[in-house]
């Protein structure tokens, strides 16, 4: 007996909208089983995971803060994924973006002004683009696989950040802690809501969202990327340069990842530290697909992913559940969401054959 996944003849609209709800229902059922088996109150656990992070202004602000870098990275990745350009190294581009903007802030230390804020954003975007251009060069010149190159460069970027904050950029007043000076006032994004950490980075992300939306749905360049992704032979026939698509996709995703790193250090961390991202660049890959490679979908998916981070923390803190359990539960949630998404577009066919297929 064999199981085979085959595309459905037509995808039901109703099912497309119902699939997140079905996934939520299945997650709750599985959660009840999981937490029940662990001897905790399953309903309290579910409440702690899903609802508690949404009950206070502070925690809602945290939700948006965490969603911001996810959204920025995923928007750029989404462009590349539509064009079959597989940038897996957003985490590295995010790190270089943070280094570039942080470097500007440190260089301007003591002589800063209002110009610093836009300059840091630009430097961060350029830093991400520069890092993403390495896989672009290697791909277009030597046909090197961009998945491997961009992924490996992530570790290089993280080492580089570690070197800088442990060495040349370490704060002279920092008691030898591996961190830079705190940025000056003009190097920090304004706080939007008093009493929270919610900073203006979300506006940067929303502006990028609109730009990506316009790019992909209204412009010829976006059309070229989509054609290159869906039918490479048609792109060649029409004369759209495959190398051009690789470059544009990688530069855009590098820029948005660089911006993600920038708003993270300008808004949340306010200095450079050895670790500036808990893996936003990698989680953004899931966010991009969870959002069906559409800007609005990506926005919703980044909020969901952020809720999973907060819910996981809240389970650990309030119910003393181990990290592994929250990880399992987050995995279940993703499994059901992606699973019901796949099953709305595909169906499982069971093939029983007495003899093995010969060809």
């Amino acid at each position, binding site marked *: 007996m064999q199981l085979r996944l085959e595309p459905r003849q037509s995808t039901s609209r109703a099912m497309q909208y119902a699939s997140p709800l079905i996934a939520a229902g299945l997650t709750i059922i599985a959660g009840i089983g999981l937490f029940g088996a662990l001897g905790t109150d399953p309903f309290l656990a579910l409440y702690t995971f899903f609802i508690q992070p949404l009950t206070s202004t502070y925690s809602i602000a945290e939700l948006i803060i965490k969603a911001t870098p996810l959204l920025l990275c995923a928007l750029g990745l989404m462009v590349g994924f539509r064009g079959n350009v597989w940038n897996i190294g957003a985490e590295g581009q995010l790190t270089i973006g943070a280094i570039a903007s942080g470097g500007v802030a440190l260089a301007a230390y003591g002589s800063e002004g209002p110009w610093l804020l836009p300059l840091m954003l630009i430097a961060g975007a350029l830093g991400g683009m520069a890092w993403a251009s390495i896989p672009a060069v290697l791909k277009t010149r030597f046909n090197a696989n961009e998945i491997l190159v961009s992924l490996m460069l992530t570790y290089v970027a993280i080492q580089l950040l570690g070197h800088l904050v442990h060495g040349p950029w370490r704060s002279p007043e920092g008691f030898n802690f591996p961190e830079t000076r705190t940025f000056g006032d003009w190097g920090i994004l304004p706080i939007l809501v008093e009493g929270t950490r919610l900073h203006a980075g979300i506006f940067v992300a929303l502006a990028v969202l609109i730009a990506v939306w316009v790019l992909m749905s*209204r412009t*010829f360049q976006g059309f070229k990327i989509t054609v290159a992704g*869906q039918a490479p032979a048609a792109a060649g*026939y029409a*004369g759209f340069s495959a190398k051009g698509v690789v470059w544009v996709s990688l530069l855009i995703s590098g820029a948005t990842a660089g911006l993600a790193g920038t708003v993270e250090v300008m808004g949340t961390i306010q200095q450079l530290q050895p670790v500036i991202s808990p893996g936003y660049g990698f989680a953004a890959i899931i966010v991009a697909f969870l959002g069906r490679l559409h800007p609005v979908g990506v926005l919703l998916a980044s909020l969901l992913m952020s809720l999973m981070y907060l819910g996981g923390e809240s389970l650990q803190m309030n119910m003393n559940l181990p990290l592994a359990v929250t990880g399992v539960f987050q995995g279940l949630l993703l499994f059901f969401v992606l699973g019901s998404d796949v099953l709305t577009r595909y169906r499982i066919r069971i093939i029983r054959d007495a003899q093995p*297929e010969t060809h």
Partner: protein
Amino acid sequence: MTPQLELTGIVKQYPGCLANDHVDLAVMPGEIHALLGENGAGKSTLVKIIYGVVKPDSGEIRWDGHPVRIDNPNAARARGIGMVFQHFNLFETLTVAENISLGIDPGHDLSELASEIGEISTRYGLPINPHQHIHDLSVGERQRVEIIRCLVQHPRLLIMDEPTSVLTPQEVEKLFETLRRLAAEGCSILYISHKLDEIKELCDAATVLRLGKVTARCTPAEETPKSLAEMMIGSELPVTRKASDGSTAEAEAKLEVRDLSLPSPDPLGTDLSRINLTVREGEVMGIAGVAGNGQKEFLSALNGERRVADAGMIRIAGRDSGTSGPEERRQMGLAFVPEERLGRGSVPEMPLTLNTLLTCYHKDLVKSGFIDFAGIASRATEIREKFDVRSSGIEAEAKSLSGGNLQKFIMGREILQDPEFLILGYPTWGVDVGAAATIRQAIIDLAAGGTSVVVVSEDLDELFEICDRIAVIAEGRLSPARTTSETSVEELGLWMSGQFEAEVRDAA
């Protein structure tokens, strides 16, 4: 006499499409039975049901007079049903014998099998060396391997799906001899084709399908190709008329190819070698040849997808253009219809509107980087109306159109650009008779307006119908071009096997 195979009341419903509507079909032992119909008439669904690939919703299959169920191709083969597909399933890097051993039940000794292959190949006139690798074989030889693969299992029904599209006229004759010998030994043959004169020559009986229903049964020998075509399309066949007498010898040379050589990047592809060709204003130039002899490579060199080393190798309107890409060549007035419609000529998942933009982007449809959606919609509407593209609208996805309608759309998209040069790859391949006639007429009309047209096709009848001159491509080399009225199917058939060296020397 009991029919070898008898289908009664076969129904197969696909979402939105009744592929087979109570189809009855009977094939007698030793009979060569034609299955005729336009694209989308339900031929392939019916054949897939017989071969166990698709299950019918209702209806009965009788084999030797007994009702049977055919659950999968293995079951079909076990009953003695063999099928030769249009697209071959052969491993290039394995030998003939190895390929054949893969297709049959395990437990065969390879050397025994090789001698059996040799026996079958002499008996049925299918010369082949069992130890040769597939990549060394011509397309015609590969088809022989597929046929032998069926014959080693001693089939009682052989299904042939469009077998002659890859063969030279001489190879077609040989194939027919083989099929006749098989039939004489009692093997039934179900022969699918849209080449009506072949059916008339070869087949004892014919069943005609239209829109999933059987619309006629006839004896092909008693019909004319015209009457057969009319049974298929259910109405009178439009006649293509030539506008001019075809004398364009004096006109200006618009497209020139000089000593074009281009090694193929694909080790199994064909290298182009010293191709020379001149196409004049208003001329339709045909390129005949058996598939896989460099047509694909030549087309992509003309289109600009593959740049050649020396710009002077391709001159468009007097300009050296060998190193310009497709975008630049379109600016110069070149339009191109590629051989694959879905995935190359169109993006399957995109609506017709965006597929219009695919090649019309230089026609004022992009304004400072933004897509002019109203512009592409009106252009798509124009294509759809002028070329009678049947689709649910201009927002229909390309993949939802039938092959013929999609081809009409792509042809329309290119022709409405008012090109100065039109390059066509297999313009009517797999297109139904009615649509093919529309497309041919459009080509002739366009040339009458001064456009230079290059048509690459395997269909000699088509080339004779529409071309002013015809050349043959074989193994990456191009024969001299002959005026259509001064050449013959026999001459071109000979050239297709590469025998035009003498002519090339004479011409030089």
